[in-house]
């Protein structure tokens, strides 16, 4: 099976010491435009997975391929979002969103000439996540949820074909989180980038993803895989339908199994 992101028996060890083995025999494939969620017990190497796929850490063994090409160094187009908003406090929300355009080719070469067009695009994105009117605010003038929305816009502004999300909704309260799930779904439906979402919220995984991968305890590898067959756009209430509840329970079983084995 070929896909946009392919991991073939990947291992990652941070140092020579075997105790720092974070991934072992990890294999999976993500199709172009697919939304995949990765869940697992805490400390199972989910965040490490993000680093390996983006090439920020070279794999110790095995092969990572993105768009058919083996990954040997940091990729140069991936949008990323983390649990912390990681916005630049000296830039306004709009300027924060514009940051990738100053770096990614070919946008960085065109930015000076077509600034107005790019700015309009960034404003559009901010409007889409409900931040119209907040473009000129600084991060510390925004609530946690607003900062997180801004971060999502920053991850998407250069229209990346691959989006890596590392628990971007993890630090938010339940209502804000659900609101952002909807925003995320809208953003994804617009351009259909390939998304890998790391999360420990099973409802979140089931609501957003086409497919959910379950990782084992450290060293992490994929131990189960579930399709989520639900038409889009999905409504929040759908996560309470019996079929979805059963899926969440099923995933939870796998994760507690993995934790028990580790203990």
């Amino acid at each position, binding site marked *: 099976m070929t896909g946009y992101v392919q991991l073939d028996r990947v291992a990652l060890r941070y140092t020579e010491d075997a105790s720092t083995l974070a991934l072992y025999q990890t294999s999976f494939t993500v199709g172009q435009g697919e939304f995949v969620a990765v869940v697992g017990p805490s400390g199972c190497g989910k965040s490490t997975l993000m*680093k390996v796929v*983006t*090439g*920020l850490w070279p794999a110790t063994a095995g092969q990572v391929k993105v768009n058919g090409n083996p990954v040997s160094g*940091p*990729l*140069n*187009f*991936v*949008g*990323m979002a*983390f649990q*912390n908003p*990681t916005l*630049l*406090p*000296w830039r306004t929300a709009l300027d924060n969103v514009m*940051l*990738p355009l*100053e*770096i*990614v*080719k070919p946008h960085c070469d065109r930015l000076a000439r077509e600034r107005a067009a790019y700015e309009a695009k960034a404003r559009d994105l901010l409007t889409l996540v*409900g*931040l*119209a*009117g*907040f473009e000129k605010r*600084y991060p*510390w003038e925004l609530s946690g949820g607003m900062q997180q929305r801004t971060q999502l816009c*920053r*991850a998407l502004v*250069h229209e990346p074909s691959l989006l*890596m999300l590392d628990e971007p909704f993890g630090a938010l309260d339940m209502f804000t989180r659900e609101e952002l799930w909807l925003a995320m779904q809208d953003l994804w439906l617009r351009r259909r980038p390939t998304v890998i979402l790391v999360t420990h919220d099973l409802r979140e995984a089931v609501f957003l993803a086409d497919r959910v991968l379950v990782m084992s305890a450290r060293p992490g590898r994929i131990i189960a895989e579930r399709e989520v067959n639900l038409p889009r756009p999905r409504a929040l209430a759908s996560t309470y339908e019996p079929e979805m509840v059963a899926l969440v329970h099923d995933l939870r079983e796998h994760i507690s199994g993995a934790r028990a084995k580790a203990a």
Partner: protein
Amino acid sequence: MATTETFELPAVARPKRLLDRKPVRRALPWIVTLAMFLLWEGAVRLFAIPQFVLPAPSAIFASLWEWHGPILENSWQTLMTTLVGFAIAIVFGLAGGVALGSSAVLYEAFYPALIGFNSIPKVAVIPILVIWFGIGTVPAIITAFLISFFPILVNVATGIATVEPELRDVLRALGASKRQVIMKIGLPRAMPYFFASLKIAMTVAFVGSIVAETVAANKGIGHLMLVASSRFEMPLAFAGLIVTGIMGVGMYVITAALERRMTGWATRGGDGVTFAA
């Protein structure tokens, strides 16, 4: 998200205490300084302290006026010497800070040597500088530089080395070069540290140049004070101190104003802790 509703609110009148009023706050430093001089004057008169031990402020200001020509000339010399040394310190401090802050290898290699170097009292170096460059302006400039570049370097390095790893990942996954990461995140992030260090570096640069002038120079405030005290002209020596203090405060105010313009984000638009507020 944007609300279109408008709300009618009654104006809230909060009684303001005297110390909360802006003109009062502005005048406060002047009042304190004036009070200190008055206290000093009173003490000297009350205890009849001889002028060659501690001159009264009135005598100092009289001497300041009497000698204003030489004082102006010598303080100009000191100011220029200090500023040149300080400017070189900024260049080397920034460059060194960026280099050490962005490379763990360079940091480990150079830091012990820098600490060792900084532990040397700069006064001890002045005689060597005199042998190399002769008596005059150059040893004073170099002393001002040597004494003030270390705090700048350490602070800039700290600001750059403590960039959040996630933030660096965001940029690197977009294909940013090391230079871009420094320019887009490292340097702006180091600016509050840089300005904090400038305030320290500025004042110690004056220490450096004046000490050098006292040891080996024929111009400058340090030299003037040395000559004045050798002639028991205590009011003139004290006038030199006061002029130095004024120059120090002046430079500090300029630095603080620059800091507010450039790093307002770090104090969230507020004034931060400055004497110039």
